[in-house]
């Protein structure tokens, strides 16, 4: 996006420029009013940003699943939020046993690794089965068909879990080792949130390495470019697609445990909102783009956390936090107006 005046002033471009100016003025005025009112200390702002980054990391991890699948199949896997939920719900039973036996506090690292493994493997399994049963038979169908199947699969998974595990919300045991704060470069940060952010970074690096440096990753990129030519080159397209779903499932399972560790509560419906938010994040960052998913997730998380008070707090709007989804989604709309392919998305001529 170059900031140069359009050649000709037609109606649409005038309106868009007007919109840009109005948004900029509103954001500046709102932020100025809030910041100059001094209602929040710098410490509180820092807290808000850290909370936003932690929440955004979880969104980002789920968003990676959307983006990977979109990258190879050009479909939105709307059941991905439920893949995320299934892992966290299943790992709950392991976590509860560890909590009751005291193992989780006696040996937190091993316990957490096992919980992560259970959740990630469960989510991976669900994602693989989902691909095999719900999507593969429809690979040659019109693009709307798998979308509807995805919504059906989402309802099927969440209600199955409701039937199997019950509809009450369950509490994860609290891990003593994760309580309190950690001093990170002079910034006291909650240990759970440090874990969330660190895990997200590690998984992100692992994913980039996998996609850019391994044979399977290269095959994945080839399938993403052109399935038929990839098949001619001797790539087993079906296997690569399953692998993509499996990797997305692993990341969603990890996100599930992180989410459960931060909020303690898991239930059969927990996949819905984070799923929608992560999809938003993937679109915001540029769907199909791995770095974009993470950038979108962090942007959305920080916007949700900081946005309401920053923009509305100074104007004495009552209960600004109630409007946080309004602000987050307004930003999504604005980004899509001015950058239809998302923050890091490239335009794709010919598609």
């Amino acid at each position, binding site marked *: 996006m170059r900031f140069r005046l359009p050649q000709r002033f037609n109606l649409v471009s005038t309106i868009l420029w007007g919109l840009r100016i109005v948004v900029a003025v509103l954001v500046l005025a709102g932020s100025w009013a809030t910041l100059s009112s001094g209602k929040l200390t710098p410490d509180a702002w820092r807290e808000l940003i850290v909370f936003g980054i932690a929440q955004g990391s979880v969104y980002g991890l789920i968003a990676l699943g959307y983006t990977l699948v979109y990258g190879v199949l050009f479909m939105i896997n709307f059941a991905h939020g439920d893949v995320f939920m299934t892992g966290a719900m299943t790992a709950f039973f392991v976590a509860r046993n560890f909590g009751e036996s005291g193992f989780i506090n006696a040996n937190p690292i091993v316990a957490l690794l096992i919980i992560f493994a259970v959740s990630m493997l469960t989510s991976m399994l669900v994602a693989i089965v989902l691909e095999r049963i719900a999507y593969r038979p429809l690979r040659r169908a019109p693009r709307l068909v798998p979308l509807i199947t995805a919504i059906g699969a989402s309802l099927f998974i969440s209600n199955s879990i409701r039937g199997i595990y019950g509809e*009450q919300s369950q509490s994860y045991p609290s891990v003593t080792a994760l309580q309190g704060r950690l001093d990170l470069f002079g910034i006291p940060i909650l240990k759970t949130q440090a874990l969330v952010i660190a895990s997200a970074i590690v998984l992100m690096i692992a994913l980039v390495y996998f996609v850019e440096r391994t044979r399977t990753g290269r095959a994945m990129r080839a399938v993403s470019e052109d399935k038929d030519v990839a098949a001619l080159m001797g790539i087993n397209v079906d296997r690569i697609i399953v692998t993509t779903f499996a990797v997305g499932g692993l990341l969603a399972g990890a996100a599930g445990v992180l989410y459960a560790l931060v*909020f303690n509560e898991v239930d059969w419906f*927990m996949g819905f909102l984070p799923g929608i938010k992560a999809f938003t994040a993937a679109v915001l960052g540029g769907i199909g783009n791995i770095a974009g998913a993470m950038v979108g997730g962090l942007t959305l998380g920080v916007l949700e956390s900081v946005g309401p008070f920053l923009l509305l707090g100074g104007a004495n709007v009552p209960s600004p936090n109630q409007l946080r989804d309004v602000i987050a989604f307004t930003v999504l709309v604005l980004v899509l107006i001015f950058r239809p392919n998302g923050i890091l998305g490239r335009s794709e001529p010919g598609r």
Partner: protein
Amino acid sequence: MQRLFRLSALLAALLLILAACSSNTGGSSPSGSAASSGDPTAVCAADKFGCVKVASGDKIEIATALTITGSTSSLGLDSVTGVQVAIKDRGQVAGHDVDLKSTDAGCSNAQDGQTDAQSLVADPQIVAVIGTSCSRTAVPAMPVLAAQGYLMISPSNTAPSLTDPSSKDFGGPFYMRTAYNDKVQGAAVAKFACEVLKVKTAATIHDGSPYAQQLQQVFADQFKSQCGGTITAQEAIHVGDKDFHPVLTTIGAAKPEALFFPIFDPEAPLIVQQSRDIPGLANTKLISADGAKDDTFISSAGPLAQSLGMYFSGPDLNFGSTYTDKFLPEYKQIAGKDPTSVYHAHAYDAANIIFDAIEHVGLKDSSGTLYIPRTALKDYARGVKDYKGLTGTLTCDPNGDCGASFVSIAQLKPDASGKLAFQQVYTTRSAS
């Protein structure tokens, strides 16, 4: 066969008169026997909404429209059991057994209240409804029920707007409640905060529901006017959200001495847990209300709330010996456990008011069919005066407020068996 019926009807009528007489000593039940004579056809034709006809030997059908699934079900199922105890205690009403149709009106989604009300009016045999659990679902349910002349008595709606004729949420002539109005609860919490806790600053959180929104407003107003306190923030959250760190951070910036959040599960326990992550709320006293005062809260955040000395407002459950010696054992027998929330006795009273009204306005024809005129039923119930119920002496005001219970503040403490339970530390009931 017919003689047997007549005989039993006569016997039932006699028994009812006896029962009425005996309870009259308490000065409660209005005089006049059950199923009085008169011409049912003329009465029913004159009644705007007609009559419910219950053939001899058939059951009288009443319904509950409470929250019986999901995370708020502890609240609604508790009231359902209260109604079941009332039915069991009562035996027959006007010579008929009573059948209870338990429906789910939900809590967090207003539309569930409307959907449920529509399913109820589709059944013309339902005489009256006990519900809803949450004020939010009562608002859309009431117009649907009132349009068909269905009386609804709520055991646990407490939002002031439901009995405020100037409000758009006003329940109308077919609505009444046995719970107190939150004008009472909000004032009591404010009084407790400034007189007992001696705090000067407070913040509130609501979830956009009529109940939470109005209760925190009453609290805020009273906290300012009664004791000159300062409200540092009145925030709101979304039902279904899990991350409350941002809203708690903005509240924590002013370091309020008390935080009042009269919301439901699962948001209330999440706020308790996440408030620990906010330095500005480290010394803040947490107060929630009756919407979260149930088993689900205890299992989610019970030990933490206990260690923080968190407070819960709600009805004062010291209803006397009938409650502890007779009601509670029966409750336990039916539900198989102790009460899971606090609005069971209110539901018991609501059911009994309906039964009294049926007996008072019901008419029988020569074949023994019972006719219950809907408008007359509502007029009788809304006109309840000095009714000696389980929760106290109930008298309805012209807008449908009939609640008599006092407000108490409780904390979580281990009971005799070592289980965490809500135990009263303060009440507005004067020691007598």
